[in-house]
């Protein structure tokens, strides 16, 4: 059973995407999917907008580009939060990027550009997109576009689907050149069903054949395996890779970044986020540069930075993280910044009601994680398949006793990782 949670999107859903004023300092995170990025610049160097400033190699290769022109004033690789600090000169001098026209690109060139432009999954996992689309050996039968933004408050993906429709569809066309799927399906939630005719109309104009699948408003509908199950009816075995089953899933945010890369010659240096929450003023959907510190975002919407009488969250309310460092930046996977009232916890004993098991999309038993994490019982944590947990937070949301389930899941995963 997947659960329904209030969507809380109405306040930001219809706002048009506005560009947020650039921050005077940017903190570019040096962490890509599973690998740290190596800086290509030194302190004191001048960088241009769109210039590559860090990269990593290998299957999961990633790269990072400067969203502004300015000066490198610090590089921290050893700290808890490795980053490159850039001082913005507000000139926005761009680096020259030579490109051939989109129509004449070969498959390899498309993948190479996606890789070079540092495009990663924008849904949160930050999986390198070139690795995902590099599927020569496998036949992809189904390309699913993930429009299910199941986190409450967040409406950035909705804004892209509604306002950047053409960009989105052109990106789909481009990706289709590489993966050559037989069928393209757009998965959107029933709460956004007005998008259906809008998307179909635009697709017809561009002559792309897509299908729309309306999905129930459940959480976590946007999880990759949950989306595949909802769209195809097939539940893939835990731990399997969609491509093995002929399926590729992409987030609308990622596709928007791909459009920017090919049609505007712009690497992944900015993304669309939602600013919302009970304590926020000026809620809405904004285009912000990667590396923009959260404190700057708060100032821009007219809120002073403080963590005493409000909780600032990077990401959605379910999976996002509470932020206590004002320099914490927007990264390629952050879908929003939320300002919520402070929590008041009322912790009860577990009454073994089993709600957490009921709502777990991976059919796990979260209460056992809490128990065996306290006991530090690694064998049992493994047996109860803690590694299959997608950390969606559904169990912590529903728990009537407010047992710290997410905390024990994260700690337990560390135990397993180090064992």
């Amino acid at each position, binding site marked *: 059973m997947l659960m329904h949670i209030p969507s809380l999107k109405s306040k930001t859903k219809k706002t048009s995407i506005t560009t947020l004023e650039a921050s005077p300092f940017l903190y570019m995170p040096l962490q890509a999917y599973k690998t740290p990025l190596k800086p290509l610049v030194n302190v004191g160097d001048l960088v241009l907008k769109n210039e590559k400033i860090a990269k990593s190699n290998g299957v999961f290769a990633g790269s990072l580009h400067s969203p502004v022109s300015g000066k490198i004033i610090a590089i921290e690789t050893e700290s808890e939060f490795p980053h490159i600090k850039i001082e913005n000169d507000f000139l926005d001098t761009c680096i020259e990027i030579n490109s051939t026209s989109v129509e004449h690109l070969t498959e390899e060139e498309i993948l190479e550009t996606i890789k070079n432009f540092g495009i990663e999954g924008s849904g949160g996992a930050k999986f390198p997109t070139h690795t995902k689309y590099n599927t020569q050996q496998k036949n992809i039968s189904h390309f699913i576009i993930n429009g299910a933004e199941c986190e409450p408050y967040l409406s950035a993906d909705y804004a892209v689907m509604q306002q950047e429709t053409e960009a989105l569809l052109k990106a789909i066309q481009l990706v289709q050149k590489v993966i050559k799927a037989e069928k393209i399906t757009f998965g959107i939630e029933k709460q956004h069903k007005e998008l259906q005719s809008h998307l179909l109309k635009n697709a017809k104009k561009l002559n792309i054949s897509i299908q729309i699948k309306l999905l129930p408003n459940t959480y976590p509908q946007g999880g990759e395996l949950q989306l595949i199950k909802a769209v195809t009816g097939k539940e893939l075995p835990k731990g399997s890779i969609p491509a093995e089953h002929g399926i590729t899933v992409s987030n609308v945010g990622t596709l928007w970044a791909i459009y920017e890369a090919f049609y505007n010659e712009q690497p992944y240096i900015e993304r669309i986020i939602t600013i919302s929450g009970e304590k926020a003023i000026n809620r809405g959907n904004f285009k912000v540069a990667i590396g923009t510190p959260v404190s700057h975002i708060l100032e821009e919407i007219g809120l002073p930075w403080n963590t005493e009488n409000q*909780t600032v969250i990077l990401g959605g309310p379910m999976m996002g993280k*509470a932020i206590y460092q004002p320099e914490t930046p927007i990264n390629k996977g952050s879908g929003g910044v939320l300002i919520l009232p402070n*929590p*008041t916890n*009322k912790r009860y004993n577990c009454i073994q009601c*089993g709600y957490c098991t009921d709502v777990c999309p991976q059919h796990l038993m979260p209460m056992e994680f809490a128990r065996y994490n306290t006991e530090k019982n690694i064998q049992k944590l493994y047996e109860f398949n803690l590694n299959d947990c997608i950390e969606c937070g559904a169990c912590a949301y529903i728990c009537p006793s407010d047992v710290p389930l997410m905390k024990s899941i994260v700690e337990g995963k560390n135990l397993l990782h180090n064992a």
Partner: protein
Amino acid sequence: MSLRDKIDELKKPFGKGEKLEKWAPAINALDTFLYVPNHTTKKGAHIRDGVDLKRTMITVVLALLPALIYGMYNTGYQHFSQISGSDLSFLSCFMYGLWKVLPMVVVSYGVGLAIEFAFAIYRGHEVNEGYLVTGLLIPLIMPVDIPLWMVAISVVFAVIIGKEAFGGTGMNILNPALTARAFAFFAYPTYMSGTKVWVSEATNIDAISGETILGKLAGGKEVAYSTMDMFSGAIPGSIGETSTLWILVGALILIITGVGSWRIMAGGLIGAIGMGLIFNAVSANDLMAFPWYNHLVVGGFAFGLVFMATDPVSAAQTTKGKWIYGILVGMFCLLIRIFNPAYPEGVMMAILLMNVFAPTIDHYVIEGSVKKRKKRLAAKLKTT
């Protein structure tokens, strides 16, 4: 001055470092009973479902109300129709029942909550709302004329031995309310069974048909009630147990809100119906010949299955485990009723027995899943 301010004012002497600090759990319990805590958390999900433990418990209390109100009415109805035979209007029956039942509820809550508060203060915990349910269940499964001090002692036993000894809310093995009833049943058998305890003030009168239907059956007497009477609940019995109709209303509330497990209830029905059909087919004696559908509407079966077997703490917690647990409760209930007429209230014994076995059921269900998964992984490794 709003109520909120008043409570804050009241809470002041209980704050950190103040002289009444160690009594803080008591005042905090009052506060959270009146107000919902703000639902956001620091770790993990930053928003929370509106239903916390307190709401869950209050939902169960609401689900119990129809049975409680009908129970009060029936107490008066049984008394007037069998003894004084005068006024049978709803209001007068209800008022008589209220007069009889309310003191039991007050004693049950008073004694139970006092112990809970004492343990909360001793342990430095917050008081949990769990007792709100137990405290209402206990009077509903007692005969109406049981002396109040017996109720009090049963409550003491149930809360201390049945619950707090194991660590309090969420830790108990047995359902506390059933523990109270079992205690009363074995400690004061003359007040808990027989021909006269089930109708108020029946002890003064000789000729009375105040037995429960199951008691009658066990004694080999004729049953004068129709299935419809048994369903609607106008029969002698424990206060809240008689009306299957109003218990079903409660069951519906529990199932719709998701508070009570429908799997356990459905499993119990399947178990009882299956067992009933087998006995009806054998039909070796009157007890076995008692129609299966009547078993569902007499005695504490419906009440026990809806409100006691579904107690999440003492029931099985895995999905498959809940089915097994429910089915076994249903089967054992009928087995005990038929093979051990000394305990006509089979459902109490059946649930307590299955409470003990619930962890074992879960253990094997989980082991089964782990094994199945290992097998699948091994098969996958072979193919690749």
